[in-house]
């Protein structure tokens, strides 16, 4: 069955389905029960699955993740909601020191099949600490996996795939897209959890990003097309590991690369994409890979956040640079 819904609703339905299929799946977080979460992603789930499976926790992120680890040891699959990206940092120690390492430290006896849901990126006019893009911290950490959805259909399926995975997954949800609608195919999962997907085919420049950037890249591609440049837009989906096969195929065709992200540029996903693809496609490249990223400043007040986030303008500016490149 194909039906239309928002990404928020798709996540809600995906969580519901996962809970129906596996009684070991639990949800944990601040205000996720009665309130249904500040974004209502868990709306109605406590009513239907009870307080023991949809757990309104005390306000302490280290404890949310730290107890999820214990629950994983006991055979449960906890899906932890961080209320906002900026509030994952109190849990950073548990994530890096325990979540990422316990499968190894137990010689494979424990599986850390837990998911940390992270409403991330900006664009909703929020006050500070509510618009961060911390994915690079997690991608850099061996033992973790990171994914991001950009459509309701992916949201519905990827959250279920993430919950089924025996590895710990940081699940990044582009909060500015929560209320956008799209078709969801309730019967057929689209593809593997880490597979990148070409959202628009093109021949001149490979433009790759994830989460909220996907829509911005598609808009840029439209304008660029009107101006005579053909962009191939790739939605990364798997942020760690990255599906380099799909990217390589595209870059070998276009010879030009732009990596887009809201996170700051230094030591980021964009750095990784450019560095790795340059190694893989050196002789195909007609210009160096270029990154369009958040500036190297604390996330600014929301009134000027659109100047901070990669915009259509900034992507097109990068397109000009790679198209006109002379060295």
């Amino acid at each position, binding site marked *: 069955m194909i039906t239309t819904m928002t990404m928020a609703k798709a996540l809600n339905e995906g969580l519901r389905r996962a809970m129906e299929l596996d009684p070991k799946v639990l949800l944990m977080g*601040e*205000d996720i*029960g*009665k*309130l*249904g979460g*500040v974004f209502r992603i868990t709306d109605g789930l406590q009513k239907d699955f009870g307080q023991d499976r949809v757990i*309104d*926790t*005390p*306000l*302490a992120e*280290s*404890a949310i993740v730290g107890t999820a680890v214990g629950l994983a040891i006991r055979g449960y699959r906890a899906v932890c909601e961080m209320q906002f990206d*900026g*509030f994952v*940092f*109190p849990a950073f120690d548990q994530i890096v020191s325990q979540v990422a390492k316990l499968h190894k430290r137990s010689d494979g006896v424990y599986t850390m099949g837990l998911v940390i849901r992270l409403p991330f990126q900006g664009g909703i*006019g*929020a*006050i*500070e*600490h*509510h618009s961060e893009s911390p994915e690079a911290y997690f991608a850099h950490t061996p033992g973790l996996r990171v994914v991001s959805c950009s459509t309701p259909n992916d949201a519905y399926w990827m959250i279920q795939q993430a919950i089924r995975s025996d590895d710990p997954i940081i699940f990044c949800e582009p909060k500015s897209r929560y209320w956008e609608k799209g078709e969801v195919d309730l019967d057929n999962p689209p593809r593997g959890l880490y597979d990148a997907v070409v959202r628009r085919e093109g021949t001149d420049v490979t433009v790759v990003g994830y989460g909220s950037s996907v829509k911005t890249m598609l808009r840029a591609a439209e*304008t*660029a097309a009107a*101006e005579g440049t053909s962009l191939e837009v790739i939605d990364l989906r798997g942020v760690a590991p990255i599906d380099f096969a799909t990217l390589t195929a595209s870059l070998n065709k276009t010879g030009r690369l732009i990596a887009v992200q809201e996170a700051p*540029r*230094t030591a980021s996903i964009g750095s990784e994409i450019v560095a790795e693809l340059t190694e893989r496609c050196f002789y195909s490249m007609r210009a160096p890979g270029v990154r369009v990223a958040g*500036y*190297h*400043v*604390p996330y*600014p*007040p*929301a*009134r*000027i956040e659109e*100047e*901070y986030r990669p915009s*259509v*303008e*900034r992507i*097109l*500016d990068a397109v000009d640079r790679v198209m006109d490149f002379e060295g």
Partner: protein
Amino acid sequence: MIDEELVQLLTPEGERVTHPEYASTLNGEQILSMYRDMVIVRRLCNESTSLQRQGQLALWAPMQGQEGAQIGAGRALQPMDFTFPTYREHGIAWCRGVPPENVLRLFRAVSTGGWDPQKYRHHVPTIVLGNQVLNAVGYAMGVQRDGANEAVLTFFGDGASSQGDVLEAFVWASSFNTPVVFFCQNNQFGISTPSSTQSKVPLFRRARGFGFPGVRVDGNDLLACYEVTKAALENARAGGGPTMIEAYTYRMGAHTTSDDPTRYRVDAEVEVWKHRDPIERIKALLVREYQTRPAAFEAIAQEAEAFALKLRDDVLAMGRPDPLSMFENAYSETHPLIEEGRREMTELMAAGGAH
């Protein structure tokens, strides 16, 4: 609300009660002036809520119901003391002299701070629950090293009381005997989370286990909040170390303008607390004991209206910041990525709409 452990100097009806340890030291003039503060900060909250509804603020965190706690605590401070607020201490900011429109800069999303924290001796708002409590203890360690006769007052909520940072701050304050007062406004809720999720026993009891006193005060009782805070600050300045104050109060409004409290609490509860309104309580006292005339209240109400009008004007006058300002003060010293970003943005703005 009969609770032996609760310090109260005024009943909800505005009648005085005595307490073995605390006596009210405020005269009628002072009480009237604090009444005025309460009325004004409530008006500030109402106006800000409308401003948010009208799209002029990105968000607002109202504090109606907590005026007794905040004006009580705020007026107990000495000028040289330093305060570390959350995002909801508008009453404290008022007492510290922060220009009220500056308090709204964060919520208008034109700033991530809002005022000069050194000038007003009032730290910028901290949104990450609990962080500021450790910062406050550190500041108090500095006060100690300076041998200064100052105290530090830091705020957090019942929800934040579960954060490791707050609890580590208790350990440190006790270990170093720092001149810090922990002021926890237990307004009964995190967002939707009731305070019973954070603790099965009254929060103030925690302090004792860390080696310093905890006091529970009726947070809707201005007089009690004032005296309890004043005593704790004096004790801190005198080298007596930390105190934790739990101001037992109630958030009459929503958590923020994004919140829908009907999802998690019943009207009847809100009604009960309306009868404990901290402002009405003081008004009753002023009428009964100091024969304050309606005209005096009327004058304050008018002042509050004028205040609100000016606040509105000031807020509407706050323009969009220059996007280039994001590069200012990211670092103290020069940084190549700042230079580069500034250059890039300037060029983009100059090219503006090339596509």
